[in-house]
């Protein structure tokens, strides 16, 4: 079958395009292995800004108090007032004063990953 000159050009261009797409794929090195869903779920404890990624909660204030006393109070103080670890409570209204106190309460944005991690290990763990 005879091809017109124009058709030949288009065909050549098409092959070139395919080749360049393959070239892009070749910049992959094929190193490593796929991460499994189970691995991702176990390691990814990130909480997004809206808290939508938080796990379903359970527990109670009483249970929380026990966990705080066991896991947190030694460094952060019995009432979260701080010790060898940072102060966790109070400080509202201090951010524009000479002694600003940054805490979960005083900083609006401070929903932290740190809290999620402790929650996973302690408050949300059965028993």
């Amino acid at each position, binding site marked *: 079958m005879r091809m017109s000159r124009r058709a030949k050009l288009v065909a050549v261009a098409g092959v070139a395009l395919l080749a360049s797409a393959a070239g892009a794929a070749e910049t992959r090195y094929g*190193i490593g292995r796929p*991460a499994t869903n189970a*691995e991702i779920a176990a390691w990814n404890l*990130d909480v*997004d800004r809206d808290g939508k990624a938080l796990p379903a909660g359970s527990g109670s204030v009483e249970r929380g108090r026990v966990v705080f006393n066991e896991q947190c109070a030694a460094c952060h103080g019995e009432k979260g007032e701080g010790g060898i670890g940072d102060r966790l409570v109070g400080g509202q209204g201090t*951010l524009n004063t000479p002694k600003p106190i940054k805490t979960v309460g005083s900083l609006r*944005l401070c929903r932290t990953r740190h809290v999620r991690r402790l929650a996973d290990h302690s408050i949300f763990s059965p028993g």
Partner: protein
Amino acid sequence: MGKKPTTPSNKIANLHTRRRFLQSGSAAFGGAAVVTAGLAQASDAPADNTPPNVPQWMKTPGADTGSQPYGLPSRFEKNVIRNIPKNLKQYTSAAVRTPLQDLDGIITPNGLFYERHHGGVPDIDPAQHRLMIHGLVERPLMLTVDDVRRFPSQSRIHFLECSGNPTYTAIYGKTASDLVGLLSCGEWTGVALKDLLNEAGLKRGAKWVVAEGADAAALTRSIPLEKCLDDAMIVYSQNGERLRPQQGYPLRVLVPGFEGNMNVKWVRRLHVTAEPIYSREETSKYTDSMPDGTARQFTFYMEAKSIILRPSGTHKIEKGYNEITGVAWSGHGKIKRVDISVDDGKSWKTANLQEPILTRALTRFRLPWHWDGQPTVIMSRAVDETGYVQPSFEDLAKIRGVNHFYHNNAMQPWQIAATGEVTNAHVKKS
């Protein structure tokens, strides 16, 4: 004990061992004469090794070749060590400083790198360490350290600086190290983060990469994707050898020019996201309080800065010739110029810059100076390739107040007394 034939070489070895014993003995006794007859020759201390005498260390062979499998500095340099604060409440989330004023050039020796950890230094077995890439990617990836090392490698020299170096209320330290010792510079070898992200394949909507460390703090920072696709690296070596545990062994993030804590050490996870993660380290910490009660967030860049290291606080200079030398750096690129004032900011001279002048690396500057013996104040001022000029502390504090905490890149003035003693010109008003 088995009998060995006494060969000539054996004799030499024995002699050698004996000498070493004698040398270490005399060191242990602080150079005092060891009074055993016949051993006097090696322990004639304290010997005068200055001219016209021939020094003792030329009279006997020195230590055996290879006597230190991993070399250490001379014992006479034992005071050149990290600047470790005393009496901190705890040392797991703390910082220790590089003794900048004791170092030359632009490369920080690995053993003297500054340290800032948030949950201590993990002892990671590289065979069990993994780097996972997931989120908005086509192919979530699990990489071993060896896998990472198979990607095309690159080596670049960059500084690292803690963002609170020093805080706005801690400008009264004595030495250069007390003031800006949370600063080090090394040659980093690793792979382009871009290559790893490309391997996983970015999905539409990817804008941030959240990096997490495998330390007890699981330190987590969000890095804008543009930086990840630009000059960010995943690093496994510093100054030619594998990363030190304090620097993130076996893998760390390097985001040149960005505040220290974003260069996530012991990195184990890269989560590609549409939004930053708003971790503790980008909300309650590493946000910069303004006088009106608001805070600046995601203040990544370490802006142009410089400091005179010699002469600097606690030094004492002589009248006459003195070389002024120090370092300058900018998170935005290369240092273009360093100005030095020897008259408390009234006039400025241009310092000589030592090549190489590298992007986002320390640049060494020098200026020959004749001190006339009159009390004065000296200081340096960096200008980077964007034209940005390092500010005075007063100008910075006027805008930011003194509770800004992070990103203090102000000039550091040194007071020189008539005696030649050098002290911090910032004096706390009490």
